[in-house]
């Protein structure tokens, strides 16, 4: 009997291939007759555009596998953009690495706090991360006095940072490295097995003596850390620290995870599925935009795709 996980993945891959074919067929043509969708520039546009949500959805997969949820990732991303831009533009440091490290560590600290509260109090992750979604957004706005911190185009440190980290190769590379890391850790390490076990059956995991609390603290810390990394990339791409950045990104990340076949109640799912889910949304968006489909219609089509994608992957018992 084939592994049901494999089958699920095959189905979501089939959905991706289907949308790719549709995108190629419907693609408008450039003046030289080539299909715009297939241009290297367009394909790398898609990869760059999905990279931030892609990174968020990788760590979100771990969180959801443990049976949790992390609603604070968008707010943490905003905090990270703010810290990055503040350090670069206000002379707190003369080294780009220090600014990035501070932003990522601050974000990881917020994630760790989420994890500790969840592990220690057993308050539902939805509530804990909802609270930090609100609180961290407030922190980002407070730190910046509601102002965007613009990163200019001159020759200063901040501009240098932006010109390096907004490069397509860097952004896509960061996503690819993160994806490889999350894939290997989930598939090949003891920690990865614990992540699945906690979400599959917490009681059983507890009786088996698995480190449930430590595992939970780690997945939320990772979620914070990678949200921070996404924030650094956001700051470079958009040339600004923005306390209002990333609103509703948590929902896009969760959508990518569930389209990829990960069960929202935990235990079952995969990083490869999440990557496919992210690609489905990215290719779909690009296809609709290339054809100038009304953005309101775009939202309706996406809604249908989300439900369809999950419906066809549902387990039959």
């Amino acid at each position, binding site marked *: 009997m084939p592994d049901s996980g494999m089958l699920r993945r095959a189905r979501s891959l089939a959905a991706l291939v289907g949308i790719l074919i549709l995108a190629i067929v419907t693609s408008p043509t450039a003046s030289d007759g080539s299909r715009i969708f297939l241009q290297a520039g367009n394909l790398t546009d898609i990869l760059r555009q999905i990279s931030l949500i892609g990174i968020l959805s990788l760590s979100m997969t771990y969180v959801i596998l443990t049976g949790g949820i992390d609603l604070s990732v968008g707010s943490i991303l905003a905090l990270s953009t703010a810290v990055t831009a503040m350090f670069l533009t206000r002379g707190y440091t003369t080294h780009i690495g220090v600014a990035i490290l501070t932003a990522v560590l601050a974000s990881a600290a917020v994630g760790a706090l989420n994890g500790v509260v969840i592990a220690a109090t057993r308050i539902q992750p939805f509530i804990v991360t909802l609270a930090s979604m609100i609180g961290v957004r407030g922190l980002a706005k407070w730190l910046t006095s509601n102002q965007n911190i613009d990163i200019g185009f001159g020759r200063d440190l901040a501009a240098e940072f932006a010109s390096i980290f907004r490069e397509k190769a860097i952004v896509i590379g960061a996503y690819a490295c993160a994806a490889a890391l999350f894939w290997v850790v989930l598939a090949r390490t003891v920690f990865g097995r614990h992540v699945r076990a906690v979400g599959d059956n917490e009681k059983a995991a507890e009786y088996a003596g698995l480190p449930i609390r430590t595992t939970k603290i780690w997945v939320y810390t990772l979620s914070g850390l990678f949200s921070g990394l996404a924030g650094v990339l956001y700051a470079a791409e958009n040339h600004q620290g923005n306390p209002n950045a990333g609103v509703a990104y948590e929902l896009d990340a969760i959508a990518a995870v569930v389209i990829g076949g990960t069960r929202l109640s935990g235990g079952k799912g995969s990083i490869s599925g999440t990557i496919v889910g992210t690609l489905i949304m990215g290719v779909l968006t690009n296809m*609709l935009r290339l054809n100038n489909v009304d953005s309101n219609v775009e939202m309706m089509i996406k809604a249908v795709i989300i439900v369809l994608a999950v419906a066809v992957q549902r387990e039959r018992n």
Partner: protein
Amino acid sequence: MRVLTTAGLAAASVAAAGLTAMMLLAGCGGESKTKQYVVAFSQANNAEPYRAAQNAFMTQLFGAQPDVKLVISDAQQDNSKQVAQVETFIRQKPDLLIVAPNERAALTAVMGQAMEAKIPVICLERDILQPNYTSYVHSDNVAIGRLAGQFIVDHLTKKYGKPAGNVVAMRGLLGVEGEINRDRGAKEVFDKYPGIQIVADPVADWIQAKAKDRMTEVLRARPKIDVVYGHNDPMAIGAYLAAKELGREKEMVFVGVDGLGGAAGGIRKVMDGILAATFVYPLCVDKAVEIGNRILHEPGFRPEKGYVLEAVMVTPENAAQLYEKFTTKAMQ
């Protein structure tokens, strides 16, 4: 069972594909023989009434020209989304790109890419960090703030015989250019008259419902208010509703900014006697379309780098006349 599921997937995919294909085809239409121009407009956020009015007006103006096809994308107030949408437009190589940037820094680089791709770019209403555009059509919020400030000074002078009184400033989203400059322009004027005091300046984020709540608190705390200066019309209207609820709307006058046409816009509210005045913050669309058309149709045309459009004051005397002018077909 599995075969069934897979069949279901296939059927569902085909259905979705069919649905999408239909929508895509609907957009194509027949090819005409004359040169068709494609104008792409990247809008920052359709949800704001001002921006919805821009879209409606632009659709109306370009719609009157059979040789122009207008495409509008909505970034839903998200920088990354707007950058992605502009990137996609660049791939499509439109004959003209109009961008109403969500925020200055975020859109600067990608608009530069459009220029590099030899696409004429018109920057609409909001500035960017570098002049990565063919032309920039905008208005001046400091000037509007000054006009509003002067109107309030004149009103108070008429009321008391001297420029004195209590003003409430209802503020928009902090940190936004429009908010900063509409506030600054008015304060420049008030600062000349020590008798005029700003007794409260709550923040209501441009939203009518929030302005009503904030104004209710101000009304409880302040027994005497002469003028409410809302940095946009919805907030001025929200303040009016709060005052009306407490039976104090006759005690003060309400001044707004934006002056949109249509039944829900500020000009109508001046006609209805709710606002004492509003200031038409130009949609900038008519000028952009005019320049855009010349770029499309006149090969040698070189537009100015920038066009500043004047604000118009709306009072009960000229409201009915301006209502006609600023109400587009889509609003009726």
